[in-house]
């Protein structure tokens, strides 16, 4: 079996406006981030980011 290399191709050129929009945090981004945290934080802290306010 031979390794097939892909072409490096051209980088993406995004405008400042496009980068501004892309960097905004969406609900889907938050879901992905929370999933990543739960999969990779030490067991004792997997639910840390689900903390609720306690002193209302």
């Amino acid at each position, binding site marked *: 079996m031979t390794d097939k290399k892909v072409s490096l191709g051209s980088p993406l050129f995004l405008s400042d406006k496009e980068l501004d929009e892309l960097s905004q945090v969406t609900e889907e981004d938050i879901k992905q981030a929370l999933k990543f945290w739960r999969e990779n*934080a*030490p067991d004792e802290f997997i639910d840390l980011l689900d903390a609720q306010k306690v002193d209302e």
Partner: protein
Amino acid sequence: MPITSHYGWSELAGRYIDLETGRFVSFAKIRNVLESVMDASAVRMNILSQQLVDGSISIANWQVAMKQQIKIIHVNAGMAANGGFAQMSQSDWGAVGQMIRAQYGYLDKFAQQIANGEQALDGRLLVRSDMYGDAARGTFEQMERRLQITNGFEEERRVLEDKLNNCDGCLEQAALNWQPIGTLDPIGAEECTVRCRCEFEYRRVGENGEWEESEE
């Protein structure tokens, strides 16, 4: 999303509480937890960059995947510093977005340097790409700083992580000692950039008129 957590957030104290023990969780501990998540993120970024070096993915696909991973780790750093998802306001998300935006700009410049040959497809590329994971440390510190301003802290000072191995910029910043909060350079702004392990300490005037330092 789970309704219950082993942790609560005390807005008054600006700290997590372990609900089983009733004790505060130190920011030092939260930093360590974030480092574990950052390590996992760094592994993902390293795999992506290795694929780019090996010719398994195109530069455009690498950019897209790296940006996804950058966003994930900075969102996590922001939430961890700010008391978790439930405590994040629109303004907090905006601040995290600005930090992600800066990283996206650096990454696109990096990609252009790879494409024009200025950055070789070798081990140095892997070392440089590792820095995008490390940058989440600065996001954590900056978000904690915002939080401490909200909590009424008035002054800050830079604390060196390792007194034997700090860059000149960090040493100069630490030598300034206590300064009005928000006026010292952000963590990551000196020569050691995203590798910086400095932290801020904060203080405010307490009810008895004495300085009261933030708990770590």
